[in-house]
């Protein structure tokens, strides 16, 4: 039974989100900490180095870590205030059991009893309905050790194919596109290579708000002569001073890329030698883009023809360049096509594998890169291996000491997993590090699915919106309460160090998972004594795979400020080596385990692939009934579904409530002025927010940030259409209509963050 047990306001009253502020013990303690712990921020994929001030097993503040080479002490407001998530009034310090008789809807439960209950419910569901009736969901904010363990737990302990992770909402379009074009899913170069590039093209990334530290790399590159091209429907802070702004219509990025490539071919501004020697498939792509004349491209993409010509000229003539993209082009039902369109521009230019020539996605989550490498994804095994590949299955089954026939096949993506819950095929769910009730599209449907579960166990440190549906909540660990590795957005594997012990009955997530396995009577392969032991098995499981970690140790990471994978432990002949890691991919003459010396790319012939990236309109285009494009995204002071950042007072104060951004022309049409209440409505849901009337957005588009929950959740409106290859949902474009409204009733009962 997984409905919210009592009136929602009672749950909120007890479990928040409430605000943590820098007063009380923190304020008076201030001053001298017991120790400074060098670690990394818990939020985005940049993983800035930071030192946490610790006093009496409490994180009381921070000190910049200026030696860490990626951010050199720089932090965004989330990093500055991240210390306030610990010692929080909402922190879960005991297990909880759903209890409709309790005022708050939940009663504390002794940890061993909770584990026993979880095990007996999992056993009951699997005995009654089969192993496949149980599913697990995890996330890319976990350390790689935990991500690895979650994939193994689902396949070896739960014996279910149904496991997936919240990276499905972030990086999968980039990953799928990278694999199709390069055979490997990783950025090509460290960010420092941008400085010295002639042109930097940023497609669909609000860098200033979503990856703020990357700003300094862009600005420093510009100081050294780079031209900056920004492709975005909104004039974001990074676009304000760029050299060329392409205000693309949401959902039309691939058309824009096709038109640019056509112009490059027309001007013969392509690298024939590179294309001939290092790629296959160019002719078909050239044939496809031939129809994308500047006039047609301008009409479809919504970007003026002369701007397209300027972009093609700069990109075509550059000697060095960097192209980066993020969710702006990836969150589409043709997200992989968008990514391939961008990669085609890079391959045609021949500018990879060389100094100051780079390409890559800007990953979103803390372990957005590492979390997509080691097997928590439904079709994947550790080391970027494929669960459908017989050789890969045999290798990993060997490491896990199981019969390959026992290893389940591919499962389904997390959105499809909820559809299976809706159809009654999945009855039980274990979730950690995932808040789908806020983060998945069309989330009123997700609520309906959660309500249908026979048994739902959530592992969390705060009671998230999704956790409110749980039968049992197990108190897990905050990032600073455990240790392990993550791979940040440059594929630099770094070490998270423990600063404090988990409070009360809370404990490290990997211990909880193993306790469940033991209580189920299935402890096989789930008896690690430390995070380091898990990492050592991960190294073996990844050995020989594309994401080879076998040559990485925690000590090597600490000594080098991180190690870029691949980092094998043996040379091509099988002799042991001390590999330094691989900051830059695809260098001429480089060796990889797929090409085996045939070429720098990760295919048997060593060549990269051009892929035809055909334009298709968004799944739900605007029409007379719903004439306005809705796009969603982030603000700098909040992170993803807000489970952490909506509990940090100063961050909530910076941007308290979501606003709907509207261009004055559209606003005037509906009689809407700045700060007026506005209702936006799609075929799936409605939302009422205050307007922010600004010139910095296309007049055919409105924007709502997605970090808020319930009646303030943008994802009530978004569409669950998905990319056919990556299965990423189409958060960045759907159809809506707007109208002026009265102040909604929720303002009387809910605080901003609730």
């Amino acid at each position: 039974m997984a409905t919210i047990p009592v009136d929602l306001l009672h749950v909120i009253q007890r479990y928040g989100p409430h605000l943590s502020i820098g007063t009380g013990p923190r304020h008076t303690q201030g001053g001298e900490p017991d120790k400074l712990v060098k670690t990394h921020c818990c939020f985005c994929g940049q993983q800035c180095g930071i030192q946490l001030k610790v006093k009496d097993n409490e994180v009381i503040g921070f000190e910049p870590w200026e030696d860490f080479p990626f951010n050199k002490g720089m932090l965004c407001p989330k990093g500055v205030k991240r210390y306030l998530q610990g010692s929080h009034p909402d922190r879960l310090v005991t297990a909880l059991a759903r209890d409709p008789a309790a005022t708050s809807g939940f009663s504390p439960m002794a940890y061993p009893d909770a584990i026993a209950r979880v095990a007996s419910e999992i056993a009951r569901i699997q005995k009654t309905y089969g192993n496949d009736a149980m599913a697990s969901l995890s996330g890319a904010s976990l350390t790689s050790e935990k991500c690895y363990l979650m994939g193994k737990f689902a396949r070896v302990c739960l014996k279910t194919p149904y496991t997936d992770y919240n990276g499905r909402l972030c990086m999968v379009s980039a990953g799928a596109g990278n694999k199709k074009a390069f055979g490997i899913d990783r950025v090509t170069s460290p960010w420092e290579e941008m400085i010295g590039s002639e042109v930097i093209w940023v497609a669909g990334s609000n860098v200033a708000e979503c990856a703020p530290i990357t700003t300094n790399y862009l600005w420093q590159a510009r100081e050294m002569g780079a031209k900056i091209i920004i492709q975005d429907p909104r004039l974001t802070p990074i676009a304000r001073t760029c050299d060329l702004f392409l205000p693309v219509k949401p959902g039309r990025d691939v058309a824009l890329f096709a038109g640019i490539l056509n112009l490059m071919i027309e001007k013969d501004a392509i690298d024939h030698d590179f294309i001939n020697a290092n790629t296959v498939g160019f002719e078909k792509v050239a044939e496809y883009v031939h129809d994308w004349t500047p006039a047609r491209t301008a009409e479809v993409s919504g970007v003026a023809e002369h701007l397209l010509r300027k972009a093609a000229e700069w990109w075509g003539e550059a000697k060095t360049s960097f192209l980066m993209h993020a969710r702006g082009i990836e969150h589409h039902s043709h997200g992989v096509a968008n990514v391939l369109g961008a990669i085609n521009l890079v391959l045609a230019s021949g500018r990879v594998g060389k100094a100051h020539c780079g390409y890559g996605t800007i990953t979103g989550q803390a372990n957005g890169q590492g979390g997509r490498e080691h097997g928590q994804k439904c079709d994947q095994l550790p080391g970027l291996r494929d669960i459908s590949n017989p050789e890969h299955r045999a290798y990993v089954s060997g490491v896990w000491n199981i019969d390959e026939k026992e290893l389940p096949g591919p499962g389904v993506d997390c959105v499809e997993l909820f559809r299976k819950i809706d159809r009654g095929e999945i009855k039980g769910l274990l979730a950690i590090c995932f808040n789908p009730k806020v983060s998945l599209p069309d989330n009123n449907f997700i609520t309906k699915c959660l309500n249908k579960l026979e048994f739902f166990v959530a592992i969390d440190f705060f009671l998230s919106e999704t956790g409110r549906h749980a039968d049992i909540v197990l108190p897990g660990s905050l990032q600073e309460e455990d240790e392990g590795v993550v791979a940040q957005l440059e594929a630099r594997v770094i070490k998270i160090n423990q600063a404090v012990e988990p409070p009360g009955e809370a404990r490290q997530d990997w211990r909880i998972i193993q306790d469940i396995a033991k209580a189920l009577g299935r402890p096989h392969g789930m008896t690690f004594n430390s995070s380091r032991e898990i990492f050592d098995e991960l190294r073996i499981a990844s050995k020989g795979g594309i994401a080879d970690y076998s040559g990485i140790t925690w000590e090597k990471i600490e000594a080098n400020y991180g190690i870029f994978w691949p980092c094998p432990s043996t040379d091509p002949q099988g002799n042991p080596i001390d590999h330094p890691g691989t900051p830059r991919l695809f260098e001429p003459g480089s060796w990889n385990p797929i090409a085996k010396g045939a070429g720098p790319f990760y295919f048997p012939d060593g060549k990269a692939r051009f892929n035809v990236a055909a334009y298709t309109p968004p799944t739900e285009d605007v029409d007379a009934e719903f004439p306005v494009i809705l796009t969603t995204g982030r603000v700098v002071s909040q992170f993803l579904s807000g489970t952490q950042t909506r509990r940090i007072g100063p961050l909530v104060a910076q941007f308290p409530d979501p606003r709907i951004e509207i261009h004055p022309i559209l606003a005037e049409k509906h009689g809407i002025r700045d700060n007026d209440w506005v209702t936006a409505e799609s075929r799936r849901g409605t939302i009422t927010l205050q307007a922010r009337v600004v010139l910095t957005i296309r007049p055919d588009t409105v924007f709502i940030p997605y970090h808020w929950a319930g009646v303030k959740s943008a994802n009530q409106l978004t569409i669950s259409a998905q990319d056919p290859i990556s299965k990423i949902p189409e958060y960045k474009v759907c159809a809506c209509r707007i109208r002026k409204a009265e102040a909604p009733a929720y303002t009387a009962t809910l605080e901003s963050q609730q």
Partner: protein
Amino acid sequence: MAVAEAYEFFIDPNRCIGCQACVQACQECDTHKGHTMIHLEFIDRADSVQTVPVVCMHCDTPTCAEVCPADAIKRTDDGVVQSARKPRCIACGNCVLACPFGVPEVHIEEQLMMKCDMCYDRSSVGKKPMCTTVCPSQALHFGTREEIQRLRPRSRPSNTFQFGHQTITTKVNMMIPIQSPSTRIDVLSAMHASTTGRRIALAVLPGDAFPV
């Protein structure tokens, strides 16, 4: 201890992304916990995302100190204008009215003027001010003049400001385009100008002007 003479503070509004890392970090200082001494100005959000961070400019002859009836505001020999001394400050607000840059604030509940002291607890012992350390765009930068010239070849520092007949020189520099002929920044002449930063037409509707 004092702030090393070679180190200067540079503000480059061109780089600012309005993220408020400076504001949030400034609040963390033990000497004014919970209060930020940085003003982050949105120039005109309806028109532009442009923001400007303002810290104390640390004038060579600080107007705030000159008008202080209690002699509470001191400039140390290293050029840093210190926050008001608590035993002397009478919270009269003369400094607030007089400062040409609008920096000091009077906190009524504490009966005290507070303002940026360039993180004297850090900068006087060889560290950078906190806002310049964390600033993700390095719109706020602390370093030597040689360093800024090497890192920012497109701009140059200026620390002379004209307010009507008053000329002020400061320890904090504003970065201006290198080709600008100005030897000083004439503040009053810009106050009634209609430009609010670079306005970029989105060029998606008929009649929208294209950017040049």
